[in-house]
């Protein structure tokens, strides 16, 4: 597979897409960990939801 004289433009396009998609995935995963850690902390401090369920109660 030869990319010709403009290979750098093609490779940069695909690399940029890979980086941006990786950042999006990382953002979603880290945000999930952050929120569940905060819920766990609240649960430990004894704060419960209005329904009476634990803060960490997830289906």
């Amino acid at each position, binding site marked *: *597979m*030869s*990319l*010709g*004289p*403009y*290979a750098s*433009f*093609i490779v*940069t*396009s*695909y690399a*940029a*897409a890979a980086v*941006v*998609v990786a*950042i*999006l*995935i990382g*953002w*979603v995963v880290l*945000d*999930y960990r952050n*929120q*569940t850690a*905060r*819920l766990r902390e*609240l649960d430990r*401090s004894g*704060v419960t*939801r*209005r329904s009476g369920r634990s*803060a960490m109660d*997830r*289906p």
Partner: protein
Amino acid sequence: MTLIDLANPTRFLALSARLLPWLAAATVILLAIGLYQSAYAPDDYQQGATVKIMFIHVPNAWLSMFVWGVMSMASLGTLVWRHPLADVAAKAAAPIGAAFTFLALLTGSLWGRPMWGTYWEWDARLTSVLILFLMYLGLMALWRAVEDPSRAARAAAVLTLVGAINLPIIKFSVDWWNTLHQPASVMRMGGSALDKSFLIPLLVMAVAFTLLFVTLHLAAMRNEILRRRVRSLQMMQASRVAFSSDVGSRQDGASKEVGAA
């Protein structure tokens, strides 16, 4: 299951937890197939190998508009039906839409340099997509600026619906004005102008990126629901602390008054 059934965030969390692994797997498989087909697609007789940029650029450009469309539907859900998850959906979609729009602009620019001789031209299509990108950023800033999510939701919903005017402008800009950008070649009257050897990888990549959006959007919506749960619990905790310190200070005051008497 209807949209009303999903109005319950706990039910939505349960359903999305079951769906996410399947969606992620389907996205990975389709992306792998799409990338393989893109790598082995033939060179274009005019553009040479740079035609491969199309397989990244076009799906991102389509999604930049599609995501705003999703946010507009969600905004209607917020303003008209007051669906509890509508503003969650709109808020979660904005950063993903901004990322796709950024990629459409960047890859378009990288495609433009060898084909047009310039990275950028202030023509109708490029400028209207840049405005879309700036609107995504503005919307994200608005969500962060207003602390109360329900107040931010209504303002953001109005802004999103006003911004939707830009979508037909982007779509038809290549027909209404003279632009460097080529007119529609896939979705047009009379069928696609693309050869199957380009069209099939392009459609596979488009479906793969759409699945990627759905997967990331569901995950981001789950995070937003958890964030709001954290916020309401922190407010309950703060009011409990304020109440107990208030009661404590009143009791202190009362005991001092009794002592003084």
